[in-house]
């Protein structure tokens, strides 16, 4: 059996926002079929990392490398990264007035498939994905995220992920602002998308989403760095003991 190649890997990533370093050298490798979680307190740099990986112009990667399926993505614009197979579910999805969910997703999918590609299956695809995520069919004609509740926005982010079917999905605080039913629906959507060929990177403050989406590896991020990595039990321990525990543990280790 030949050795599997990494699906997504980044090495020694440093990110600056307005000249200030917010991510200070992080590395990670996701193999096909894996789910990783980055957990950390507010301000630890985890959202900055996901924005930078997606190519947000305000989050500059000043050092480091990132490869998606062997392809260097650092020099790519965010639309190229998307077409290469990277997806970011936004923490705060923006409203786009006048652009309906259906038209937006059609344009997005068309750009993934190519300008002249056949789109005759699109309506059916959208309809079935919406049904699977319990999104009201009326949302297809509504303007994207305009007047949506927090839960509706997150569900529509997952809808976009299902339709675009990326190689790697970065999910930035997708669980925030969801009640338990919405959380379950969203988690089901993520699990339905997940297969042996793609990868997921969950970025979250709390571990509750991890009850439904099981990570293979959990990374704890504090002050711009990964300070600890471990199996799913790490998330439970964090839930129990809080982030201070990691902080103290690290300090103790330094003090030994």
């Amino acid at each position, binding site marked *: 059996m030949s050795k599997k190649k990494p699906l997504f890997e980044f090495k020694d990533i440093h990110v600056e926002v307005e000249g200030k370093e917010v991510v200070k050298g992080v590395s990670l490798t996701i193999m096909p079929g894996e789910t990783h979680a980055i957990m950390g307190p507010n301000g630890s740099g985890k959202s900055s990392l996901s924005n930078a990986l997606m*190519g947000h112009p305000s989050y500059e990667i000043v050092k480091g490398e990132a490869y998606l399926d062997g392809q260097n993505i650092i020099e790519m614009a965010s639309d190229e990264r*998307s077409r290469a197979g990277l997806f970011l579910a936004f923490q705060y999805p923006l409203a786009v007035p*006048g*652009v309906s969910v259906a038209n937006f997703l059609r344009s997005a999918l068309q*750009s993934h498939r190519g300008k002249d590609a056949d789109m005759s299956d699109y309506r059916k695809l959208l309809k079935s994905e919406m049904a699977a995520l319990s999104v009201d069919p009326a949302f297809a004609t509504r303007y994207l995220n305009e007047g949506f509740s927090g839960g509706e926005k997150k569900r529509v982010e997952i809808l976009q992920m299902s339709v675009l079917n990326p190689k790697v999905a970065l999910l930035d605080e997708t669980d925030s602002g969801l009640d338990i039913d919405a959380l379950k629906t969203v988690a089901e959507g993520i699990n339905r998308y997940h297969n042996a060929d793609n990868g997921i990177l969950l970025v979250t403050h709390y571990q509750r989403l991890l009850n439904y989406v099981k990570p293979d590896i959990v990374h704890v991020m504090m002050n711009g760095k990964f300070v600890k990595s471990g199996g799913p039990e790490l998330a439970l321990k964090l839930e129990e003991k809080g982030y201070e525990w990691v902080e103290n543990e690290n300090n103790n280790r330094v003090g030994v």
Partner: protein
Amino acid sequence: MNTKATMIQNSEYTISDISPELMRGPQWLRDLRNKAREDFNQAPLPRRGLHLWRYTDPGKFMYELNDASDTTYGDNYDVVEKIERHHVDEGTLAGLVTDLGGREIKRYGTEALAEKGVIIMPLSEAIEKQHDLVEKYLYQAISSQTGKFEAMNGALWNDGIFVYVPNGQVIEQPLHLLREAGMENSATFPRLLVVVGKNAGLTLVDEYGGGSMDEDKGISFVNGAVEIFGLAESKVRYVSLQRQTSATNSYLTHRAQIEQGASMLTIPLVFGGSLCKQNFGVRLNGAGAHSDIYGLLFGSMRQHFDNHTLHHHAHGSTSSNIDFKVVLKDRAQSAYTGLIRIENGARNCEAYQENRNLLLNPGTKAQTIPELEILNEDVSCSHGATLGSIDQESLFYLQARGIAKNEAVRMIVSGFVTTTLNRVPVDLRERIETFVAQRLEGI
């Protein structure tokens, strides 16, 4: 040698001196033309500081007029006319009226309307055949006292279009008016008079095209006046489509008066010309009258636009709504001033006004000034205005879904105008979307 230009500017010359043919018609009309000539002479050039003239030099409309008989028209006109004739033939338009230079008015495919009692004819012909009707309404919404340039049109219009819809007659499909300006060094004074009877309905697409394409050869000047009267319970929909060429200066005044229970929808589509100053006003004269103005303006290159809207609530229990959207790129400029006037005693009125401006690059310039004159307290009124560039976060969101930057910009612009387009009744929307799409191709 006296050119006509110097004759218009020189108050010693009468209309007969300028063009004897303008003095045909009945005495009342000759009197009104002479009065307009006099008012034009008397009125000083508006001062730049005055609110309607803060953004545009009035001197640009004191055009040096060459002999109108030399006027030529652009090659594109035949193509446009052919397209609209085709629309009439396939039954999507109620009829077509062509107006070359405010001088040559022709009808196409309007026979079915005539059978319903709808009168469509050159104003000169209507003055003979529908004398009482024309005398009752002409110059009533726009007089020579309205302003210096309205007086200029009032004195110098050669021929215009007259449309009358009898009581109870509803024309559902649009009647298209194609008004072609002359090419370089020409002046055109189009005029339109529309009367829509009680319980009657009319949809008009009033397209202004043509003009000069080369500033070095000379500009084209257009000074137009549109008067619309909607009688009780009538429904008027009026689309003003400005598609003039790049070296054309136009000054257009629209005034509508609507009576009890009547509704008026005005859709200014402001796309063309180099310098374009327009003034859209609706006076609500009776209880239950309602007016909507949904405007879309796209400016590029060095286009300069100056638009004014007026909702004049002269009667209580009337309502109005304005949504005017502006998109600018390159070095285009737009000024929008919107006045809501609610008369003393006009109680229980509602008036809303919104002007949003999207600036696609630095170097564009937009001004927006809402004005309220509310002379009693029992009203519900609001206005809003925004100026902004494309939000970088929105752009990132679209790009993060694989949509390339230029396509993402186009989508955001298209979304920006869609929220206004979706207010337009469905049967009219598709036609307007086509006009918008044609203009957006160049954005």
